[in-house]
């Protein structure tokens, strides 16, 4: 198991977001190396690296890049910084602590794929992060890193712009993101065609998550094989896991891709406040199926979590101790998807609101056993029936919460009230110091 840090090694250093800090630490040397390589050779290194998308789907990055049609220009790169999946809070720290690592990754990716215009789509609520990133881009441009000649030596013009969203979870879905970037409401597009073929303004577009692109400089500097060697099987490199909820030390931890979930919670996060037990864990953002406390001794690698019946998704781990009401938690998650459904597809638009209403009804002691069954029925009729994955994202929590905590739902029905009373969110709801890539918050 490796202790190599790729993404967090500069976090917390003085002026870590400044160009001179980045350069003093060897920054932009990978871009320099890349400019001496054939673009196709860079793509090959990324393929060899087994880098998988860090936004949630875990799709092979190098493979995605090869979907670009050969002869169509212009092509675009869009970096997805719409980090909005509840429980996910990692990309923002890459931007806050080390924006030049992201910019270098963008520059290398654009050079490798013959792209001359890149956008970073950042959620509107990240105003500070947008300012930091824009300042870093301006600094790189002023220093001649970007512009008409990359690093002042290679004739390759590249513009990178920040496009701020305005508050809509759905815009993290890649085709909704493109709609939003085109100045429209975020309605996901029918796929196929996929964005790599028909994307921004109808042109081939690669969309990658912030963390995904931030790995590219290391891959070019150290080789795809070295990156693959840090991981296991089809997953290369390290990953950022964000842990929140009922843990003594929440935060963001850079770990091997196959790190153990239980160890992450019990050791890195210092266990559960008050010595209470883990009741449930959401392993990869709020849409990933919930695991019971006795199911968390697993590897966090994408395929391993899938084998355990959930998803490693965005690496957002939410921990619930045994004083938490799972019905209340599901009611809040269901409210989120009902709020954020864009309204384009009927099963999702209507179904998410129904589910929210039924879970609320059960939580408040007005539900029946038939309601619990109805929840499962509705969820089963949304998943797979919609244009984008939000429908599935809304269904999976409902299905898994009911399946794994059915007794608790039925207890609400039988007792005609929430057995947890006013403490549904746990006996101890206080905020605790966080550890973000080794930096105390």
């Amino acid at each position, binding site marked *: 198991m490796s202790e190599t840090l790729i993404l967090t090694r500069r976090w917390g250093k003085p002026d870590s977001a400044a160009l001179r800090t980045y350069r003093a630490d060897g920054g932009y040397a990978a871009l320099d190396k890349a400019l001496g390589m054939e673009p196709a050779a860079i793509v090959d290194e990324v393929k060899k690296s087994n880098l998988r998308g860090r936004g949630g789907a875990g799709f092979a990055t190098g493979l995605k890049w090869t979907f670009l049609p050969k002869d169509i220009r212009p092509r675009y790169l869009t970096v997805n910084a719409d980090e*909005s*999946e*509840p*429980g*996910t*809070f990692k990309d*923002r720290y890459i931007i806050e602590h080390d924006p030049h690592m992201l910019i270098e990754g963008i520059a290398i990716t654009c050079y490798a794929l013959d792209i001359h*215009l890149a*956008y970073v789509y950042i*959620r*509107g*609520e*990240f*105003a*500070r992060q947008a300012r930091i990133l824009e300042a870093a881009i301006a600094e790189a441009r002023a220093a001649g890193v970007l512009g008409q000649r990359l690093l002042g030596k290679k004739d390759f013009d590249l513009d990178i*712009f920040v*496009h*701020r*969203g*305005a*508050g*809509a*979870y759905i815009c993290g879905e890649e085709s909704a993101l493109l709609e*939003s*970037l*085109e*100045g*429209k*409401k*975020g309605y996901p597009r029918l796929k196929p065609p996929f964005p790599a073929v028909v994307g921004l*303004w109808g042109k081939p577009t690669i969309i990658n998550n912030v963390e995904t692109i931030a790995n590219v400089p290391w891959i070019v500097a150290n080789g795809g094989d070295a990156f693959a060697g840090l991981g296991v099987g089809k997953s290369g490199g390290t990953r950022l896991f*964000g*842990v*929140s*909820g*009922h843990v003594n030390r*929440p*935060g*963001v931890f850079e770990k091997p891709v196959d790190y153990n979930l239980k160890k992450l919670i019990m050791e890195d996060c210092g266990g559960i406040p008050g010595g209470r037990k883990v009741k449930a864990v*959401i392993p990869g953002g*709020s849409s990933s199926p919930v695991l019971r406390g006795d199911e968390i001794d697993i590897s966090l690698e994408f395929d391993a979590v899938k084998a355990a019946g959930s998803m490693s998704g965005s690496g*957002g781990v*939410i921990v619930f101790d045994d004083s*938490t009401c799972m019905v209340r*938690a599901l009611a*809040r998650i269901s409210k*989120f998807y009902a*709020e*954020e459904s*864009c309204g384009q597809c009927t099963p999702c638009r209507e179904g998410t609101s129904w589910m929210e209403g039924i879970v609320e009804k059960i939580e408040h002691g007005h539900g029946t056993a038939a309601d619990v069954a109805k929840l499962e029925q509705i969820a089963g009729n949304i998943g797979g029936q919609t244009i984008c994955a939000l429908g599935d994202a809304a269904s999976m929590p409902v299905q898994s919460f009911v399946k794994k905590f059915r007794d608790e739902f039925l207890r609400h029905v039988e007792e005609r009230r929430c057995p947890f009373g006013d403490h549904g*969110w*746990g006996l101890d*709801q*206080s*905020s*605790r*110091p*966080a550890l*973000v890539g080794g930096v105390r*918050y």
Partner: protein
Amino acid sequence: MTNPPLVGTAEELPREKVEHFDRDLAEVLRRYPPDRKAAAMLPALRIGQEIFGYLTPAVQRLAADRLGTSPARAEEVATFYVMFNTRPIGRHLVEVCTNVSCCLTGGDRLFEYLKHKYGVTNGGTSQDGRVTLREVECLGACGTAPAMLVDEEMYERLDPKKVEEILGRLE
């Protein structure tokens, strides 16, 4: 039936503010290809909201007009995204996250506390017009929960005392 009258035209907006809008918009338009001006709808409405307070039909028309697109496009965007206001709000906007990680660390109690403090329900504005309070979805601050935005600046690891300090500074 006749169509309802079109309310609000860009011409009725104060000229000075429109000039301000145009200056800021010109800056933003450099980010998009010249034949793709409509892509700037989100930044254009953000600028409009900053300058005019909220997105009246007239402001929406101004944005649409400058970007060479239809007012319907401006309205579609203004009403889809939660950070755009099509109605007046208080002098300050306080947005509290009540999603899961925030509630596990006290976010819902904080929101309840603020509702009482300002005497409002979700989305309401205090009597003195100082604060509009809103419940919002996950802000991406789950490790440092609970979190809130005040006039779009994020504050994290909140407790009642810290919240009082932050809100006490508002005019």
